[in-house]
């Protein structure tokens, strides 16, 4: 247990080891650790941001879906309305047409009636004339009684 030069040797060795450690060992290890720490921090921040972004995107998507749903409902309602309109219109057109046809037919019938009546009137007058002829047994001057006959047929 003598104190001797060993002490100095140990001192020098200690200094050398410390110097080596400070120069070549400590910096790379600490730098790498700091770098990793920073990367982890960045990663955590990015993850948090990603979560927020996802929520936002989901909200946006929901809004979009709602909007398109509304639009679809509107379109369907419009289409329904238009369809009823078209049906109504068609109905109106058909009714109008039917009315038109009916009035035409009525007019035609009226005309026919008039025509038949007129014909009947002629026939009746000629029948009357024949009857009168046979009754009187004498030729009646048709020309002389034409006016009277016409008046008669007019009253029928």
């Amino acid at each position, binding site marked *: 247990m003598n104190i*001797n030069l060993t002490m100095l040797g140990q001192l020098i060795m200690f200094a050398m080891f410390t110097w080596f450690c400070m120069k070549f*060992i400590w910096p790379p290890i600490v730098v790498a650790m700091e770098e*990793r720490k920073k990367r982890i921090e960045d990663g955590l921040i990015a993850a948090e941001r990603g979560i927020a972004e996802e929520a936002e995107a989901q909200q946006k998507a929901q809004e979009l879906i709602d909007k398109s749903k509304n639009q679809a409902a509107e379109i369907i309602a419009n289409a329904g309305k238009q369809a009823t309109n078209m049906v109504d219109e068609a109905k109106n057109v058909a009714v109008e047409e039917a009315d038109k046809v009916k009035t035409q037919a009525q007019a035609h019938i009226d005309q026919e009636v008039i025509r038949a009546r007129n014909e009947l009137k002629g026939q009746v007058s000629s029948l009357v004339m024949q009857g009168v002829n046979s009754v009187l047994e004498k030729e009646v001057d048709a020309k002389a009684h034409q006016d009277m006959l016409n008046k008669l047929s007019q009253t029928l």
Partner: protein
Amino acid sequence: MSAAGEVLTSGSYIKHHLQNLTYGRLSDGSWGLAHNAAEAKDMGFWAFHVDTLGFSFVLGAAFLFLFYRVGKTMTTETPSGVQNFIESIVDFINENVRGSFNGKNMMVAPLALTTFIWIILMNTMDLVPVDLLPHLASILGVQYLKVVPTTDPNATFGMSIGIFLLILYYSIKEKGAGGFAAELMFHPFGKFMLPFNLFLEGVNLIAKPVSLALRLFGNMYAGEMIFILIALLPFWIQWSLSLPWAIFHILIVLLQAFIFMTLVIVYLDMAHQKEH
């Protein structure tokens, strides 16, 4: 037991174990290894403890090699295996330095790391069975071998003097020579008590390296001594004492290294503080 052939008493066995392998100038004028304790003593100051220097160098180099290799292959990806281990140590040191050291000095943390790991390794040599390495050495013809460098006061004082020089250097650098002198002279009792202050602060200053060295040396020396005493018992009973003591000693190994490191950080922090 180590030196076979000699008649062994307990006393000589213990003395043999406490003798360093010393290289120096022999009494006949030539340089060589001392053959016994008396010769080693006669060499005086100009001698080396080959075993202390050798073991501490090998252990320090092993520490540096391991950390250097890991530092070179450091990855910022997921670390694995040794890197995890190294990183946890570095983290531990960093935390301690950040907690106790308030100045700005890039040297303190690496110094603390070196101190911590090197002392742990040197202390751990205590857990190697007491007779194993000396016996192997004696087979190879080496008479003396003391395997635990920290049981040699030369080693602990060598380190603590290094720390002491750093304390002086940074005290003067941070506070200026005048500031440092003022701190020694006008504290704690003002300038009327200058001699007393100087004495008190001087003792305070000197006590730092002395206590550092003696605490580590004393603990390890006592531990080693107990291992040697246990080794004197009959071989079949030794394990019952050496095992518990070894387990307890693991604690001392780590604790002493930690105390040394913490005190180094604290002392350097005090050296950096301008306001006392």
